[in-house]
């Protein structure tokens, strides 16, 4: 299981064993939705924002 840092809050995020590029995980520390952009080494980027769609 590889790890990468959350781009928002810096927490270490463990990736699933079979993580593939394009998958979405949320940071366990701050909840940011992160896209797996690299697997070896693991790399994360902020996922495309859906912010306008929630709430109202």
């Amino acid at each position, binding site marked *: 299981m590889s790890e990468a840092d959350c781009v928002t809050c810096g927490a270490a995020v463990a990736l699933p064993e079979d993580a593939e590029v394009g998958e979405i995980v*949320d940071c366990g520390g701050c909840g940011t939705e992160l896209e797996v952009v690299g697997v070896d080494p693991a790399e994360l980027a902020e996922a495309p924002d859906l912010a306008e769609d929630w709430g109202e």
Partner: protein
Amino acid sequence: MTLTASVVGASGFAGGELLRLLTAHPEFEVVQATSRQYENRTVGYVHPNLRELDLRFSAPDDLDAVDALFAATPHGVSMENVEAYLDAADTLVDLSADFRLGSEAAYDQWYDGHTAPAYLDRAVYALPELGREGLDGADIVASGGCNATATMLALKPLVDAGLLTPDDQVVADLKVGSSEGGAGGGPASSHPERSGVVRPYAPTGHRHEAEIEEQLGLSLSFSVHAVDMVRGAAATCHTFPTGGKAAEGEIETPDLWSAYRDAYEDEPFVRLVAGGGGVYRYPEPKSVAGTNLAEVGFAADGDRVVAFAAIDNVMKGAAGQAVHAANLAFGLDETAGLNQLGLHPVGSP
């Protein structure tokens, strides 16, 4: 001893509640929580009350071996997957209606048939207050439905006492919260449309009738109304008993107290509330919200007995009931993990 458990359908309402209960349960440890929509997300992404849980959703087709698998999936899913579930687990505790009825014929009549009828005999129906036989060591536990649970808990003492006979008229009028619809509700479940309603959503022919008839031997007229709360199911059963004392004249309140006490005095999850003073005089869902308790009560009026029960549909009507049954299936203390106290005051939980 720690028992391992998986929850299939863990992103749903009943599944989330199972996670809440099993996490704090002294004997169970959750090893998997499945979701197809939220695979790899933390459990707290969906269930904000469980943000502290260090667990991510996994796919339902990749199941670890466990002692108990809880299936909190829509009708039809666990009958489709029963072999896989029993391969992975010693005991399947199913929260859906898939194994509640006794025969393939019943599924033909009330549903669209059954795809795994061979397993029906291995399933044990679980509303423990109706009887615990067969639960110890069961392979498949079919946890009772929410509306059926409320209705049967209200009526059972009248049946046991011989007051209510199979030919007597029974009208069950239910009022239920929006969580009964599950997490994937459609347009009728949106806040603007669902707020403030008294909405007859199953005026006749609700499928829970089947379950009640099988378990209690009564036939009844059943109507369900959506009202403005999230958790809760309240059954008002208008009955016209003709058996036992009723045959001799009017039923008096003390007779009813005897009947209800006889039925439930040793039950850890039933609380009798029938008259008395103060604001809370009859069973109310908000008094039991978040707990595995059922409030049960009655009022007599001439030849009519109105029997009431109130539960939290996600707890005593689903996840709590399932954990209760699992406790019995594994020979644990039956109240283990189910000692939550309710809240007062509380709004519309």
